[in-house]
């Protein structure tokens, strides 16, 4: 019984580590630009296809493949941001943030369908050799899942270093923490928005490619996870980067543990229920201050 429970928790952590990357991306973009960019989901799929193309077609090594899966959605993210979202940001009306959210959903649909046009609706797998699961203390975990976990961890550490050591990283944290104060200190949030978009979408792309390596990729790979990503981000308070990681781990574990009582297809529903629960109990999210949530 205990082993079974521990197995669910372990699976949850593996899933949570994957979801943490796009959730970080979403949170980063929200912090700097002030709106929920729903197109992270489609950018996950872009990253997954980039990795699939680099790995299964061109035969690149895994590290270069992941780098490719970071850069392609990052660049595409900046391009779509410039083309689709920036002109609407400039209107700066009373409901710009919501307009941007609506447009980003349309953008998500557009990217998803562009991928479907190019690659078709079929599932594409990476054709990796099948490996035996590792068994430790009665727990079972796939080698690829372990590698994903480690990759996500390495990226999280690299990000933490970027945000605490570099000038750009500190500026971004300042903007996320208090936009007005950052502007007073001479940081122009608009200049940071391209960098935030690049890193955010790139993170989503890596998350998507890790997921695809473990399972497979089709045009809806990212969109299926949209609720889980948002739940993770909302759980963390939408502006807290550490909150997003913890939120993703919590959602991952909660979703897996809930499978004891619920069929696995309802994993997204647990995420939705988690959002409702958080809004009822602690509307500001678990890890952030009150700024930016209350109207």
């Amino acid at each position, binding site marked *: 019984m205990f082993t079974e429970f521990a197995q669910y928790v372990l699976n949850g952590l593996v899933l949570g580590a994957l979801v943490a990357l796009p959730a970080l991306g979403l949170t980063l973009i929200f912090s700097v630009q002030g709106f929920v960019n729903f197109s992270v989901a489609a950018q996950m799929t872009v990253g997954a296809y980039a990795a699939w193309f680099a790995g299964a077609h061109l035969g690149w090594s895994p590290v270069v493949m992941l780098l490719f899966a970071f850069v392609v959605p990052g660049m595409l993210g900046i391009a779509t941001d410039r083309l689709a979202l920036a002109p609407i940001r400039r209107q700066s009306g009373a409901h710009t943030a919501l307009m941007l959210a609506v447009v980003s959903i349309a953008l998500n649909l557009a990217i998803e369908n562009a991928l479907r046009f190019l690659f078709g609706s079929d599932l594409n797998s990476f054709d990796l050799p099948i490996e035996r699961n590792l068994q430790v203390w009665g727990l079972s975990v796939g080698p690829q899942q372990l590698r994903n976990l480690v990759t996500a961890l390495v990226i999280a550490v690299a990000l933490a270093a970027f945000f605490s050591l570099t000038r750009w990283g500190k500026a971004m944290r300042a903007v996320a923490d208090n936009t*007005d104060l950052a502007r007073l200190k001479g940081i122009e949030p608009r200049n940071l928005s391209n960098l935030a978009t690049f890193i955010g979408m790139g993170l989503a792309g890596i998350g998507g490619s890790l997921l695809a390596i473990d399972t497979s990729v089709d045009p809806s790979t990212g969109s299926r996870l949209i609720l889980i990503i948002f739940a993770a981000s909302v759980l963390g308070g939408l502006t807290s980067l550490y909150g997003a990681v913890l939120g993703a781990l919590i959602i991952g574990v909660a979703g897996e543990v809930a499978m004891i009582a619920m069929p696995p297809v309802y994993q997204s529903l647990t995420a939705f229920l988690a959002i409702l629960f958080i809004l009822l109990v602690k509307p500001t999210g678990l890890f952030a201050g009150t700024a930016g949530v209350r109207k």
Partner: protein
Amino acid sequence: MTSYLLFIGTIAAIYALLSLGLVVSWGQAGMVNLGLVGFFGLGAYCSTLLTKFGAPIGLGWVAGAALAAAIGVGFCLLTRTLRGDYLAIVTLGFGEGLRLVELNERWLTGGSDGISGIRAPFKDALGELYPWFYFALAWILVALVVWVLSRALSSPFGRALRAVRDDEKVAAVAGKDVLRLKCQAFGIGAALFGLAGGLYAHFTSYISPDNFAVQLTIYIFLAVTAGGYSRLVGAVFGSLAVMTILESSRFAAEFIPGLSAVQIASLREFALAVALIVIMQLRPQGVFGLRNERAGSFDADTATSAAVVPVPSK
């Protein structure tokens, strides 16, 4: 050909009802409902299941609308102290979550097979005339809703809603019950989505979770934006325009050689998504722009939402 035109004409009327609902909650009161397809599906399944167990179809429609309205008001109350984004996220989650339930509770909804053989009103009695009857019924309903809403929105209630949309704090200071107004507007919107769902289910006599995917939300947002997002006439015009684009692109795609069915479908959806983005950029006020609805010199378009910078008085 006539039956095809009647079919898409009726569907256009259902889109118009959805668009009218969005105009009330989004255009007039400023609340985004990203899960409108969820309320639409709720109305459809509620009415279908009720009539399956012998309830009259009219009762099914009312029940579907009432259930959708109740849930809409519930979400409104839940997010009452939060920024608008949260209502959008919750409704989006509701739409997706409901689709999962529709897909997986096979004992109730038939899963991905859907429910077929939904009862149609007076179908046996009318025979050949039935499509004409339903077409007329749907458009009479649209006309009725437009009439009632235009009365309501030009009354003090409508002015108060627009005040809430433009600046909640000002409306509250002026003594308006902001929460109550928001709940009413969002509830009316959700009720219309639910009603449209019931109308849809008994028209096509078949529903499945595929009918209630997120694409429909985008279509309705496109319709409302194209028509002018605060205007009732714009909603009707926009849904006719979207239906025309949707159906004509079906024929246009056949002229492009060498495309598979999947590619044609994805190209059409891509085009509609891009159309929404372009319209929002170039003409956010739509074909029918804002009409003499604002009081005083306050200009909603130049005010900043975050209330970071105070709006200078003009």
